[in-house]
């Protein structure tokens, strides 16, 4: 899976309270959640990136609450992939489970400027910066998780597995 989109750069320790503030937790519709993505720090985030975006973040992305609403909101707001130096564990699992690619790449923050055009190869673990021409290489997403992503998330993946049994 190769994804191409512009980068939005964020810092370290972006928490799920800013990704999706608590006051929207009574929402369950992905599109409605997406409208409020990142509202805590970047109001109007969703409307800015209608043609897709790759979040490039520092350490511990998605720390805090287990609210899957955060990952759902990002995906619905047009985030195609999150590349971070590291992820908080619950967010990482949530992202993969709902079919939002999450790629860990130490050192990525220094190699990307906000709005750079990126090409992310999940299978190879390569992030190509189309502005600078530089390629960052990291541990690819493990094959079994890649299958979950290719199927569109853990639910579709389990259904597919069940159908093949």
């Amino acid at each position: 899976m190769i994804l191409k989109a512009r980068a939005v750069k964020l810092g370290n320790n972006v928490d799920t309270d800013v990704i999706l503030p608590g006051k929207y937790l009574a929402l369950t519709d992905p599109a409605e959640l997406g409208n409020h993505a990142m509202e805590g720090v970047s109001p109007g985030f969703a409307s800015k990136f209608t043609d897709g975006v790759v979040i490039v973040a520092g350490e511990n992305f998605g720390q805090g609450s287990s609210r899957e609403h955060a990952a759902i909101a990002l995906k619905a707001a047009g985030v195609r992939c999150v590349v971070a130096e590291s992820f908080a564990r619950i967010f990482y699992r949530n992202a993969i489970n709902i079919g939002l690619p999450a790629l860990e790449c130490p050192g990525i923050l220094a190699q990307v400027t906000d709005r750079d055009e990126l090409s992310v190869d999940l299978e190879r673990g390569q992030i190509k910066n189309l502005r600078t021409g530089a390629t960052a290489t990291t541990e690819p997403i493990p094959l079994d998780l890649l299958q979950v992503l290719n199927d569109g998330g853990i639910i579709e993946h389990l259904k597919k597995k069940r159908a093949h049994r």
Partner: protein
Amino acid sequence: MNIIEKILAKASRREEVRPGEIVEAEIKSAMIHDITGPIAVQSWRKLEEAKVWDPDRVVVIFDHFLPPPTEQAASLQKMMRGFVDEQGIRSFYDVGRGGICHQVMPEKGHVHPGDVIVGADSHTCTYGAFGAFSTGIGSTEMAAVFATGRLWFKVPRTIKINVNGSFAPSVMSKDLILHILAKLGVSGANYRGMEFTGQAVEDMSISGRMTLCNMSIEAGAKTGIVAPDTKTAEYLGASSSNSFHDIGSDEDSKYERTIQIDASTLSPQVARPHSPDNVIPIEEMPETRIDQAFLGSCTNGRTEDLRIAARILDGRKVHNCTRLIVTPASQDVYRECLREGLIEILTESGAVVTNPGCGICIGIHMGILAPGDVCVSSSNRNFIGRMGSPQAKIFLASPATVAASAIAGRITDPRKLS
């Protein structure tokens, strides 16, 4: 093996496990609440399964919208009631029956030493206080657990936190965990387990241990855990007292690292905005006026916490410019506090006492902060916008510090008042 490895080995029917290995563990209890539950049910419906793997292992607790403040929240709870009925789930705690999930789970007998427990809430790690391996997961993952009763885990490396010495008066386990967060940072235990050992932990009440384990997630930990002992047995009742003597860590257990702390050197700690690891001892705090003080949450809303606050507030008044909100963690805690006369003392001092629930800590129901508000809170997170406006400031501290600060109208060392 250490206690975490032992529990995961047993739950995955292996002789031995090592950090880094992926195991599939049998789940003893799976908990959802009124915020993560609806998404879990939504995902569950997509799976098109008829029945959850074991309705007696699924626990449903309403606590975030308690009672519902909006039609939207009420509708989510209504939908959840339908799921509970349809699935024949008996462990269901509706409005007025339970309270904050992490208090209700052990109170109502859903936690035992050695269990592997998952909850669709990040503070599920609280049950480590009872020697269980418990961790937070997302809603969709929970739907998968509902279908299979199993879940994969990477066996974590473990950080041992050995705490000796005894706490000075008015210094609490909350101050210890804030101090640990200052040392580790918010991602210092990411993907790892944290085991709390040492005399100070052995001497600690179950309530204090729950506070410790509860905030292990604030360092990113998969779980925090304390080996079960006679106090655990006493809390849980005689039925389970003899079943967990083999759970504790072996003498030759391996740890990624060990942190030694002398509890007697600790003073009350404060986490400043906007991160739980932005911690300093209270002596170093500049003068900080507060608009609101909050005593409650799954971290510090237990009888012991309200008792300490009541002792400080007894015969005193909450400062004119400050509002004190007190939220007992559960119905049982509420009743215990009523019996002890604590609610009388707190309300007499000018505190408003709410029904149990999570709403204030997470900024969704009552006590919401306005732009520019400053709050000192006994809860667990002070992220931007956590309790309301992104322009509000949240300081985290112990129940003793919250009570002392409410009286003074500024962040105050409880040792000066108690």
